[in-house]
């Protein structure tokens, strides 16, 4: 049927089927700013449009219903002011504010936020913060914690009143404290605008699913309803016969190639235990068959027509049962490839045994030994853009994989044998990504679309539904962790032991490396004091086992949040038991500058350990700043603060956690960069590094700009295309700024040298003899000691066109021998309802030492968003399975992530040390915010009411149960 829609004051006429949603039709018309979040109850809001001026989810209306109404999308609201000879009115104040503020991270929900704010400001031109948060309540964001979007809307109000008023960026910048001497620099330390922000604020078609190719087929996957079964038979005859179906693939149709989905360097540090399709299913949601069809509806119908006969097998659903005698074996396939100590016969995916010092002796020297078991749950990354991939043959018969991935180069390498193609015949392109948080450090769905493109010859688009994200993507490894710590009565730690049982789910991707991190980056923080500081006694043992649940994988923090819940709760437990101040106890025993990261002497992900002395440890300064900011001394154990006047059922509490993460993996993570000069003195910077909304493209551009003496906007970044950009491991291990940044620095230095030599030639023409060491690059010029200047544009023209022509360019790559950790102190205050057990988190303050901060706004945005994820980890998020392995959480209604109108107050403080091994003094910032919130909240709950929880999330029933037990114990006494 033909319909007419009024979109942005334009009449759009389009032929549709009657049951297409408004979202689907708007995207067909090219309004890609309305995005799909894969949800089914409108909970994410990514598809927001204005309908008669009100923000609605366009997935909740049929397109036909929208006829006769006014529809507005963000495409209506502004564009670049200067477009060649054309001038426009420029951006809407909301877009301007979002761009300036750092509110645009991945950008997937940015159009939705802008539209919601637009609707609000039309009704209420001067809203307060609560009203702004209420307006954003229908848009879920996983990147920003809504901090900067709210600030941006407040700024937009000011801009609308006074359009010429220049923005003071300090509004958005965090508090900064310099510990070391940090030189004043041109671009480093400046909050330069994120280079993709304008594009994303306009809703440009920048994401994977925004590329529309002719004759694209839609892929769907038939998934197992059983946790553990063999496929006795599978018949796709009826499905293949359905009109509109182009291909149906089962395990019988494609080559049987074993691989790992983990996006990691070669050789993959884990077992190879996965097939694209297998004759065995190992979790509810495991793959059974692939379908490609002309429409989504036809593909769904085809799935129903595939007949599968299963032989049910007993599942393992509790990690404690995995290695028991007689347990069913998940991986009995002959093609299984072991790695290190994996042993599929006993469901062991990996094993870790690390001893540093003499732990047993350390325990004998202790005055007291504290021992407890802690539990951390499985949780989901919940990025708003689902996994999505588009594959097609290009004109040269090469397979192009356009995909939402953090690891394009690993994807290409892993896919090649699976598809029966050489690496050179595959091109992987990463467009903008709508969030990943580790879940896209996985070659998760590219093979599905690729196999179907091979089978049909046509482009294939596969986008996971939200339910599939929950049942068939990846998650954080759940673990059971025993802590055993020996201390002297003065609080000196004599021995510290962590024993972890980690559940990798049905496949072993990231099994070893995630859990290795759990010990390395948490236990490595505490060394003891006195003689123990020189020779710490630390033990970390872990077994990582298979269960018949969806596989775990990489999630921001990568095992370290799992380590800090038990470790930091344990530190508080010990401090309280000893009657010591919890901060003093920690600082007495934490590692200091000039000391070894103890694990660097014993562990390096299966490779040779590389002992590392820590040069920059700003932890004490972080603690000091954080404690001042939260008012620790006024609040801690102050009954006047803890008891809430007039509300006897409420108690306040304050807690702290001290944490450490990592910065890249030494001698493993490699990044490459190429830079070339253009005719106008600008530069193209090609990097394999992957910006998933983190702002890494911007930060890398700033590093280049600083080195070359130009504004950041003169660095044009092209990233993450395996054909055109140098290799990079991708976005994980907090490596981009440090490793890829150093590659950029080195390439820039090389180019700078070439520029200076060319400048000397030009100065010689003017009668002045200089050498390149004499020349400075500044303000787009090469400047001689006598003040004479030549512009980079002139240098470019000279080198490209006028004489001794050459392309000034350089390529560099970098592998670091170091891994200098960032440090942080996380503080939390909570309100506990002692009649119901309900916990409300009121304040979260994190003070962070991430070295020199290249871009304060993007860096603080990373901290804020990470804290919000850690908040969920602490109080509400978990993935639970019933006795048949069926997931309880399959949408973002039951799996609740915090809305704008319920966030606690979040504050970031940066404590800047100068890390000499990092580009311009930088360390990592991306993952550490995941580490501290959960234990700080747990410690705060204990402070509030004495409830000492060993398991997260901290849900009301657990709190009340403990309160009742405490009351009963007190009564008994």
């Amino acid at each position, binding site marked *: 049927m033909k319909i007419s829609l009024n979109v942005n004051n334009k009449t759009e006429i389009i032929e549709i089927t009657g*049951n297409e949603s408004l979202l689907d039709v708007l995207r067909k018309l090219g309004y890609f700013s309305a995005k799909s979040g894969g949800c089914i109850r409108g909970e994410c809001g990514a598809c927001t449009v204005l309908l008669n001026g009100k923000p609605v989810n366009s997935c909740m209306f049929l397109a*036909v219903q929208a006829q006769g109404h006014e529809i507005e999308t963000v495409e209506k609201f502004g564009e670049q002011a200067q477009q060649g000879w054309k001038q426009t009115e420029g951006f809407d104040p909301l877009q301007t504010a979002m761009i300036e503020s750092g509110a645009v991270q991945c950008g997937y929900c940015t159009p939705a936020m802008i539209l919601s704010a637009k609707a609000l400001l039309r009704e209420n031109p001067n809203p307060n913060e609560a009203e702004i948060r209420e307006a954003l309540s*229908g848009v879920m964001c996983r990147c920003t914690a809504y901090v900067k979007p709210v600030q941006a809307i407040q700024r937009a109000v000011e801009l609308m009143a006074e359009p010429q008023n220049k923005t003071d960026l300090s509004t958005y910048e965090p508090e900064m404290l310099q510990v070391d001497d940090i030189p004043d620099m041109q671009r480093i330390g400046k909050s330069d605008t994120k280079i993709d922000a304008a594009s994303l604020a306009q809703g440009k078609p920048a994401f994977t699913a925004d590329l529309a190719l002719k004759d694209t087929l839609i892929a769907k996957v038939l998934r197992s309803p059983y946790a553990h079964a063999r496929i006795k038979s599978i018949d796709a005859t009826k499905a293949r016969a359905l009109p509109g179906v182009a291909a149906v693939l089962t395990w019988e149709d494609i080559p049987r190639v074993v691989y790992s989905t983990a996006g990691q360097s070669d050789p993959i540090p884990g077992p190879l235990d996965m097939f694209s399709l297998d004759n065995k299913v190992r979790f509810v949601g495991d793959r059974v068959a692939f379908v490609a069809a002309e429409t989504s509806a036809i593909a769904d119908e085809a799935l129903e027509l595939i007949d599968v006969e299963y032989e049910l097998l007993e599942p393992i659903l509790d990690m404690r049962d995995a290695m028991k005698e007689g347990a069913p074996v998940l991986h009995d396939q002959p093609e299984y490839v072991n790695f290190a100590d994996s042993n599929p016969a006993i469901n062991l995916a990996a094993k870790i045994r690390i001893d540093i010092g003499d732990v047993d002796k350390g325990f004998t020297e202790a005055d007291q030994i504290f021992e407890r078991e802690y539990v951390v749950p499985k949780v989901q990354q919940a990025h708003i853009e689902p996994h999505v991939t588009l594959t097609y043959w290009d004109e040269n018969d090469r397979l192009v994989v356009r995909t939402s991935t953090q690891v394009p180069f690993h994807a290409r390498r892993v896919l090649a044998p699976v598809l029966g193609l050489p690496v050179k015949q595959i091109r992987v392109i990463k467009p903008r990504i709508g969030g990943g948080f580790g879940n896209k450090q996985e070659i998760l769905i590219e093979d599905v679309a690729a196999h179907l493109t091979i089978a049909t010859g046509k482009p294939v688009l596969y986008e996971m539904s939200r339910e599939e994200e929950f049942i068939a993507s990846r998650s954080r490894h759940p673990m059971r962790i025993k802590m055993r710590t020996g201390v002297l009565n003065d609080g000196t730690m004599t021995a510290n032991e962590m024993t972890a049982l980690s559940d990798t789910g049905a496949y072993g991707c990231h099994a070893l490396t995630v859990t290795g991190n759990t010990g390395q980056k948490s236990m490595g923080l505490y060394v003891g004091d006195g003689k123990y500081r020189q020779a710490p006694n630390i033990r970390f043992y872990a077994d990582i086992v298979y269960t018949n649940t969806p596989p775990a994988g990489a999630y921001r923090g990568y095992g370290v949040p799992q380590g800090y819940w038990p470790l930091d709760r344990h530190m508080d437990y010990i401090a309280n038991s000893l009657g010591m101040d919890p901060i003093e106890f920690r600082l007495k025993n934490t590692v200091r500058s000039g000391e070894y990261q103890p694990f660097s002497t014993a562990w390096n992900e299966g490779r040779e350990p590389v002992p590392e002395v820590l040069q920059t440890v700003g932890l004490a300064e972080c603690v000091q700043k954080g404690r001042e900011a939260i008012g620790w001394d006024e609040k801690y154990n102050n009954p006047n603060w803890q008891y809430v006047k007039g509300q006897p059922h409420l108690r306040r509490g304050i807690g702290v956690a001290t944490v450490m993460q990592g910065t890249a993996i030494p001698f493993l993570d490699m990044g490459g960069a190429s830079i070339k000069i253009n005719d106008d003195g600008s530069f193209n910077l090609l990097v394999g590094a992957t910006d998933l909304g983190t702002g890494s493209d911007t930060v890398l551009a700033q590093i280049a700009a600083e080195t070359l003496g130009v504004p950041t906007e003169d660095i044009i970044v092209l990233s993450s295309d395996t054909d055109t950009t140098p290799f990079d491991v991708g976005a994980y291990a907090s490596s981009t700024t440090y490793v890829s940044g150093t590659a950029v620095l080195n390439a820039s230095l090389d180019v700078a040298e070439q520029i200076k030599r060319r400048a000397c030639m030009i100065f010689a023409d003017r009668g002045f003899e200089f050498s390149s060491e004499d020349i400075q690059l500044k303000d787009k010029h090469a400047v001689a000691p006598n003040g004479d200047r030549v512009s980079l544009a002139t240098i470019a023209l000279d080198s490209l066109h006028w004489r001794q022509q050459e392309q000034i360019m350089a390529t560099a790559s970098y592998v670091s021998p170091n891994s200098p950790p960032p440090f942080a102190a996380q503080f939390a205050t909570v309100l506990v309802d002692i009649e119901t057990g309900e916990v409300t988190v009121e304040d979260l303050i994190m003070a962070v030492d991430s070295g020199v901060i290249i871009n304060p706004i993007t860096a603080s945005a990373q901290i804020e968003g990470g804290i919000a994820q850690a908040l969920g980890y602490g*109080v509400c998020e978990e993935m639970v399975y019933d006795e048949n392995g069926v997931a309880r959480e399959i949408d973002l209604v039951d799996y609740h992530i915090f809305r704008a109108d319920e966030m606690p107050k979040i504050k970031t403080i940066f404590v800047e040390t100068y890390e000499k091994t990092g580009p311009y003094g930088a360390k990592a910032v991306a993952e550490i915010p995941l580490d501290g919130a959960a234990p700080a909240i747990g410690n705060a709950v204990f402070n509030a009411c004495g409830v000492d929880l060993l398991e997260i999330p901290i849900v009301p029933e657990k709190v*009340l149960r403990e309160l009742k037990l405490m009351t009963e114990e007190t009564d008994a006494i």
Partner: protein
Amino acid sequence: MDEHGINYYRPQTREELEALMESHEGYYLFLTGGDYNVKGYQEGDVLIDLQDLQMDQLVDNGDLLEIGGLSSLDTLFKDEILWADFREALSIEGGWNVRNGLSVDNFLRIATGRSPLLTCLRALDINLFVQPDIGLLALDEYLNEEYNWREFFIEKISFNKPQAVAYEQVARSPKDLPIVCVAAVRDMDGTIVVTVGGHEALLGGLVFEPESDIETSSIRELFEETDDEWASAAYRQGAAEALLKRCLAKLERN
């Protein structure tokens, strides 16, 4: 009919609607505003879109409020409905986008016992006028009947304005769906109606006559069989009693 067999109609008058219903007797489905999962329609479905029939109005008749079935949930945020706790329950039910889009009719089709808004509406003891041919139904009657509600529509809901509304819940976060919730309404004559939620199945309620002694522990009975994957019955019982006391205190203050 389009090539995929969807028949879409948008009548402009009641007469047109009746004529359509007659011509497609027994074989039509109603579109009543924004809905979850709009992609559920199949080839051959006859879809009658009611949006032009003025069923989205809020009418204040003094003691009685009437709200059209095609009103968005956000209509319930309007000034005529002044109770802060009711608005809070509505805010928890869905963010601004959902409230702007989801109609009262479509909300009631899918609401379960975990719904804060439904818990409040049950306490308000709303009546529904259901078409075609069903007429006036109490809310609980509607919820307990096993009609295919796609073949019917709620023309309007109505309720007597109460003196006060109180709502309390326990959840994992301030805007998460509740594990246990209590809504209490004091009618104009002083009767207090209490309903509970936070559990998938619909639970019973309590009525306290004016001036009667209120035994708050009576709420525990309502949660006796409510062990589920989210919470235990024992927890819900204890928490519900605490919440009821708070609701009653709020009613007292208003």
